[in-house]
Structures are given as C-alpha cells and as structure tokens.
C-alpha cells in the first residue's frame, strides 16, 4: 500500500507540474527562464513512477538484517501530498499588494535601501520612452541624481495598485514584483502616480497607465511622479513579474 501511494504521489506531482506549465500559472511562482526545468521534472516524475511497474517482476531482497530503507511513514507521505493540496485547493494568484507589506519597496529614490536595479543588467538605453517598463525606469532613475532630468518624458507602464499611509488621496503606486529565481526573492518596485480619481481604484487592481513625469514630493523626497493622461483597468498579465 505504501508502494501504491508512492507511485500515485509521484504521478500526481508530475501531472501537477505539467498542468502548471500548460496553463501558464507556473509563471506566478518562478522566473520564466527555469520553466523548462519544471517541464523536464514533470516528465521525470512520470518516468520514475513507471519504473516501479517495470521492476516489479524482479527478485526481491530479504531485509531481515534489521532495517528498511525507503520506508516512508504515513506522515511523510502526507507531507509530500501537501504541495498538491495547496496547489489545487488554493486559487493560484501571483503575489500582490498584501505581500509588499513585508518587503522594502523600491521607488527609485536616490539612496534607496536595497537597489533592485543592478547597473550591469541595464539594457533600457535603447528603448523608446513609451516602451520602458517600471524596472527600466528605475534603472534610468539610478543613472541620474536629479529627478528634474525626467520631467516631461512620456511614460506607458502596466502594474497593480498599491498604497499605504504615505500616499495622499490623489496618489497611488503602480507596482510590479521583480523575480530573479522564484517568488521567494520577489522584490517590489513601483512608480508614484498622481491621478484625481486615485481613491476609486481598489488595491491590487491592474492598470495600464499613460502619462508623463513631473517632479513632485513624496514622503519628504523629490522624486519623478507619473501624472496620468490616460488610465485603463486591465486584466493581470500572463507574466505578472519582471525579471532581473
């Protein structure tokens, strides 16, 4: 029975990973560049599960010398079932505003605590202003010490709505998470947005914002603030995170 449960769990783990890759929700959990590993592992689980049937006819080994390797207890099997239960019973969602409360947020102020934007990875220079995402803008902010350098530049970004006590009623942050490995290392980044109807936007709502930068004051610092020309509500993108 122990053996039967093992085979079932191995098969289900394979199916679980395969389904995540097929429906794209694997991108809620890990960086895109490791998805091929998840697919490979799905195949590996099926192969390993199959191997139990293919060796079943072989001679067995009398373990009368006092130990059993590979005997997993019921609690151990239950633990292996846990990712399957959590994966299938809890709706799969990318990290949202609630997860920011636990992390240092980077809005590109000069002297930010942990800069998520390593200068080596900067590839935003060749992009037209309208094509730059939030991460590209933070790279640019880093290369300049004067927020006025960006005043008037056109911006078009997509992100989710985040706000905390520092935001006045007409402001919110359009935020994204950056992920280098998996969501365990997710770091929030964002641009401060000014919009008269900001209060009408629920937290976590994904928005597509077009506008331009103006120098403004946020939490006692001079920063580029995105003034809205056009704002539309959108569905969360298939690829919710930005990759470093």
């Amino acid at each position: 029975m122990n053996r039967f449960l093992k085979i079932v769990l191995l098969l289900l783990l394979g199916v679980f990973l395969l389904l995540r890759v097929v429906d794209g929700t694997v991108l809620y959990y890990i960086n895109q560049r490791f998805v091929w590993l998840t697919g490979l592992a799905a195949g590996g689980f099926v192969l390993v599960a199959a191997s139990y049937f293919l060796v079943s006819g072989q001679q067995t080994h009398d373990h009368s010398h006092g130990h059993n390797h590979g005997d997993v207890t019921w609690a151990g099997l239950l633990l292996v079932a846990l990712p399957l239960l959590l994966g299938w019973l809890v709706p799969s969602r990318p990290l949202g505003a609630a997860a920011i409360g636990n992390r240092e947020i980077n809005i590109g102020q000069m002297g930010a605590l942990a800069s998520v934007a390593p200068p080596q990875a900067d590839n935003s220079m060749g992009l037209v202003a309208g094509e730059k995402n939030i991460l590209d803008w933070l790279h640019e902010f880093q290369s300049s010490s004067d927020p006025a350098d960006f005043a008037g530049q056109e911006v078009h970004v997509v992100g989710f709505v985040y706000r905390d006590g520092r935001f006045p009623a007409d402001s919110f942050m359009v935020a994204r998470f950056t992920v280098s490995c998996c969501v365990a290392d997710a770091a929030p980044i964002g641009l401060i947005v000014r919009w008269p109807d900001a209060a009408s936007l629920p937290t976590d709502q994904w928005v597509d914002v077009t506008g331009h930068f103006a120098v403004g004051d946020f939490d006692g610092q001079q920063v580029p603030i995105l003034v809205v020309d056009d704002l539309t509500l959108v569905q969360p993108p298939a690829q919710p995170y930005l990759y470093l």
Partner: protein
Amino acid sequence: MDVETANQAGPELETAVSAKRATPRFLIGLVVLTAVIFALARFTTGPIHDRFQTFTTIFLGIFIEAVPFLLAGSIVSGLIEIFIDRDWLARWVPRRAAAAALTGALMGFAFPVCECGVVPVTRRLYHKGLPLSVGVAFLLAAPVVNPIVILSTYAAFGWGPVLIGRLVFSVLIAFIAGLLFNLAAPEEALLPTTQADEACRVVDERQGTGYGRFWQALAIGGDDFMDMARYLIAGSMMAAAMQTLIPQSTLLALGSGPIISVIIMMALAFVLSICSTVDAFLALSFVNSFTTGSILAFLVFGPMVDIKSSLMFLGVFRKRAVLYLILLPMALSLLMGVAINSLIVQ
C-alpha cells in the same frame, strides 16, 4: 528499498502491522488537511486570507523551483546505486585525511548538483562506503564548486574577487569541516539507514542487464525522492512562513556596518533558501548597499546551509552532526566576511 521489501514477510511482522495502519491514517490526515486548507482558502477574509495566500504562493515558488533539482539528485543517487562499484569507490578515494577532504570539496565537478540534489547523492555515496569526511566536504562545497554555479556566478559578477572568493572560500570551509568530521566515527554522525551495510551488498550490486538495471536505478531514485522530499517540503514551508511573518525590511534595516552586514546577509541567505544556481543574480542587487564581505558570506554560506537544506541534512545525519554542519560553516563564513571587510577598510 520499497522495490525490494514489497514482497517480504515473516521477520518484520511489526512493520507489516504498522504499514497496515498507515493507510487509514494517511487517508484521515488527507481529509483533515483538505478541510483545513479549503477553509483557510475560501472562508477567511482580511489579513489572515492575504497572509495565507502569500504563504502558499511563496511555498509553491520555492517547491516548484527546487523540486526538479531534488528529483535529478535522486535519480543520480539511483544510478550510483546500480552502476558504481563499491570497491572501485574505495580505491578511488584517497586515504590520507587532507587529500580525502580536498577530494570531497572538489567532487562537485564530477557530480554537478545544487544544494537540493547534493543531499540524496551524498547519502547514497555514504551507503556505498564513502568516508565521512569526504561526504561532508562534498555536501558543503558541491553546491558552489560545480560548473553550473561557476557559470551563473560568472554571468552575474564576471571574473573577479567575488567569483574567485566564492570558490576559494567554499572549498576552504568545506575542507576544514571535512577535516574536523574526520575526528568522528561514521556511526556517531550518520543515521543507521545512511551507513554502509555489508549485508546490503548482495543486492546493491545485483545482477541485471541493460534496461532492467536502468529502471531499477529509477525506482531506487523514486524511493530516495520520497524520502528526501518531506524534508524539502517542511523546509520550504518554514522558509515561506518566515518570509510571510518577518518583514524583510526589518532585516535589511538593521544596518550595514562591517560585522552586522555580514550577519544580516547570512541570515537572509538562511531564510530565503533559494537555489545556489541562481543566488548570484540576487546577490547582485545588494552590491551597492552592502559590504563586499557580506555579499561573499551570502554567496558562500547560503549554498551550504539554509532552512531547507538543514532540514534535509536530518535525513542523512544524526541531530548533533546536523548542528555541527550548521554551526561550522556559520562561524567560518562569519569569520571570512568580517576579515574581508576589515582588510578592505584598511
């Protein structure tokens, strides 16, 4: 191995009885867990709901990222079991303590595994009679000293003090730990199921041809996976819970002095529990705000010890040995990081 124990009877009546009770217990547990998770996911609101959702996402993130590596390590372990000859291994490993520990520290080039895959491989090599010190050095160094991680560190930092420092200090710390474990007897440090067992020899090198042996290796790998996966899952859950409950900003805001920064980056590496194949990219984002010594401590200590790997050690070693395996690299990495920082300041 389950493959072999499946049809046995007689001498292990007790095991058979407990196995009979195991299935109902498993099913009851499954129903209870299902109910609890379902209730938490659907019937809670506000901060509890948000925290649970965040916890689930981070837990599945760590699990999905790590599980291919654990599976690969388990399959390698099965292949070692079937295809590597015990006497050949004994001949190949140097006898003198220093040479043996150094061999262990550099064995990652032969078995390119990260910190999840290295555990089942080490366990299997112990089972094949690998000396304790060699295995310890291998376990600690292999997640860094292997071609894949060298390449990813190079991609993030280029040739320079960080890459060279990471390699040199990983080998050095693993070497020292290996030498120290040389003082202990294998039965003091290893779990009974891990130790080499002459009685198992008959089966371990059993006959068979071609595909049959390959399938046998896979089935043994499956058993190994099931054995180690529970530690990985328990570790991922603890890491996800820590991340959900303790704000990362509290950790990072503690300061960036030459000593405190090393401690903070080591704590971060321990809590994050991310794979050694990619941690260099994350470390890169701390370069501007943290000391060089602390970045190196993150890159050296993290692959050796973190929440999920220290839990996985429990599947191979006795508790006291696991404690040493955590404390030794911790003390040595701290020493290294602080020493580098004070050298740079001068």
